[in-house]
């Protein structure tokens, strides 16, 4: 599963943020999601999706080896090892390592693909399996 984006298709609905938090934390809270939508208004009037590119920077910069790679090339913070230095948060080139008061350690995308499945605009897709959209005929969104 390799997350990729058709930025032009994004409508800014943020359902991806919602499903991510519900799937991974069982919390209805976009601030607990592992990707973010940014609006660029009034001009050019588009949305931008910030998402994990699996670059591994977070793991590289962690001073205490508290970030492990899960199977599939995604990363996870080990709660017992993390010292809260925030290097991963600061150094992530996409700005998609997040923190939240109610969650003990920083969190990042785990490649679950829930966002791919639910995006109504075909704005987020799986680059390893682009045909894995809800309905194949809707690849082109005007």
């Amino acid at each position, binding site marked *: 599963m390799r997350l990729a984006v058709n930025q*032009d298709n994004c*409508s*800014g*609905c*943020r*359902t991806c943020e*919602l*499903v991510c*938090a*519900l*799937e991974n934390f*069982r*919390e*209805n*809270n*976009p*601030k*607990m999601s592992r990707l973010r939508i*940014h*609006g660029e*208004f*009034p*001009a*050019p*009037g*588009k*949305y931008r999706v910030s998402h994990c590119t699996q670059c591994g920077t977070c793991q590289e910069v962690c001073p205490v080896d508290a970030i492990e790679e899960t199977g599939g090339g995604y990363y996870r913070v080990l709660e017992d090892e993390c010292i809260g230095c925030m290097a991963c948060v600061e150094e992530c080139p996409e700005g998609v390592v997040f923190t*939240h*008061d*109610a969650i003990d350690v920083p969190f990042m995308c785990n490649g679950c693909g829930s966002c791919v*499945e*639910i995006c*109504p*605009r075909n704005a987020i897709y799986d680059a390893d399996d682009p045909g894995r959209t*809800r*309905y194949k*005929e*809707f690849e082109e*969104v*005007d």
Partner: protein
Amino acid sequence: MLKGYAGKILHIDLSDGTHEVTETPREWAEKFLGSRGFGARILWEELEPDVQPFDAENVVVMAAGPLSGVMLPSAGKISFHTKSPATGGYADSNMGGHICAELKFAGYDAVVIRGRAEKPSYLVLDDDDIEVRAAGDLWGEKCIDGEVRLKEELGEEFQVALIGPAGENRVRYACIGHDFGRQAGRCGIGAVMGSKNLKAVAVRGTQSVPLADPDGVLQKGRQMYLDSFQLPGFKEWTPQGTAGVTDWVNEIGAFPTKNFWTTHFEDHKNINGQAILDRILVTHKGCFSCTIPCGKYSRACVGDTEFYVEGPEYETIAMMGGNLMLDSIEKVAYANWLADDLGIDTISGGAVLSFAFECFEKGLLDEEQVGRKLEWGSVDDVAFLLQSIAERDGIGDILAEGVRRAAEKIGGGADYYAIETKGLEWSGYESRWAPGQLISYATADVGAHHNRAWTITYDVAVGRDTLDGKAEKAIELQHVRPLFDALGICRLPWVEIDLPLEHYPEIFQMVTGLSYSWEELIEASERIWNLTRAFNMKHIPGFGREHDHVPERFFAEEIPTGPAEGNMVPQENFEELLDRYYELRGWDKHGHPTPEKLRELGLDFVVGELDLE
């Protein structure tokens, strides 16, 4: 407290800058659901009949619903409520975007704003941190620049709702803007904010919406999305959004044209949804959690001016397109942009402008009064009028009062050209030959608005002339459509792409823990309908049947041109339908709910206060 609700109501007193938090009453949730239901309940509680809309004692209630902010299609509709400067009665105005969900994440079901700030101010809600701040030179900014500034100052995560110069100057149909193109358009709630010296409300929240059954919501919510994707309407309706209905409304002859003089606009193909897609669209822009982004964010040029606008959607195409004889999508988008930025409702704004153009044409206004000659279809004249209205300058000061009051000032029979009911201008369905839609407009609680019951499709489906089933249909829609307003979500997934209604009681239970059947949800909606009726009885002197009226023009003139030429609904048919409507509702012949009806709905407290025995 039930899940789904944030559990708190925030009270702001602008007069001394203080605030207080109370618990959301469980009883209110059970009987009135939320959003519009809370707004109606709070207005009933708060306002004495002698309070005038621009008095400090008037309140503005912003309220989300129990399903707002939840993972289900289009869960982001907030309502604003107040005593309307247009009608003097109950007002609510509904808005999409993202501020509704953000209010839930900040931990509030509703915000009740009382009093008047000494100086122009804005409100910042940042989870538990509440501040009333001096607006300084933010006051005077138009809506686009104002939102840019606030997001730059506070952070892009903040959701901003604000008024423009029109609201600051108490234009009676001033709207509230948000998210660079969404509005709480109707009833002049922006003007009430202006009268309170309140420029904006900015919200950020980091909390979760509590759920009774998180696993259930994840599964059920996900299913509602996946089901939506399979519906034919999902692919067919979404590209043009509501603009897609423009051609059909013209083909059946119900398109407001030239101040509701006729019902078909010859250039409609130049201002329809396809014109948007072909010529100006930049982005399909959606509200919170929406599957079918109906916002058509566009870029266009008129003269030397390049602009961006979310729109135009159907209502603006109708009210500022055909109704103003603007014959290109670029011109309609331009009028849309000007109105949005100044903070003027495009529906009422369109109707006020068309009133002005027709008054000029008929010699009721002259060049000296207006400041220039007015010509139908002139986009420069439209721009001039909108600017004058926002500033209350010259003729703008009269037109800022809305068509009813402007007509009173202008005199000479101008009221004939004032297309309004209860003081609110009509929206975009010319209903002279649509009895179901006619009765819907006449009886809507906020004044002439189609949001309560969109009956035109039924009129056409079963026959324009027949009265059979029309009162029943209006009532049914007046319960179903505002139910979405009470739940705090958008009805378009059901209305436009046929997402089955069965989903809603199911997810409502998973979210709140409350097991309500569809009938019980509808009953809550009927309860709210009777409460807002009662509010109008309490606040509008002599309120009754004569307030459920239809503009004189509709009974005086047959449709003069187009596919519906020669047709109309005879007045006696309307009166008969209104009788039937009251009867079905359990109201008396004055259009007043009977004590029995009110008690049946659990509105005993209304019976006592209205002295109905």
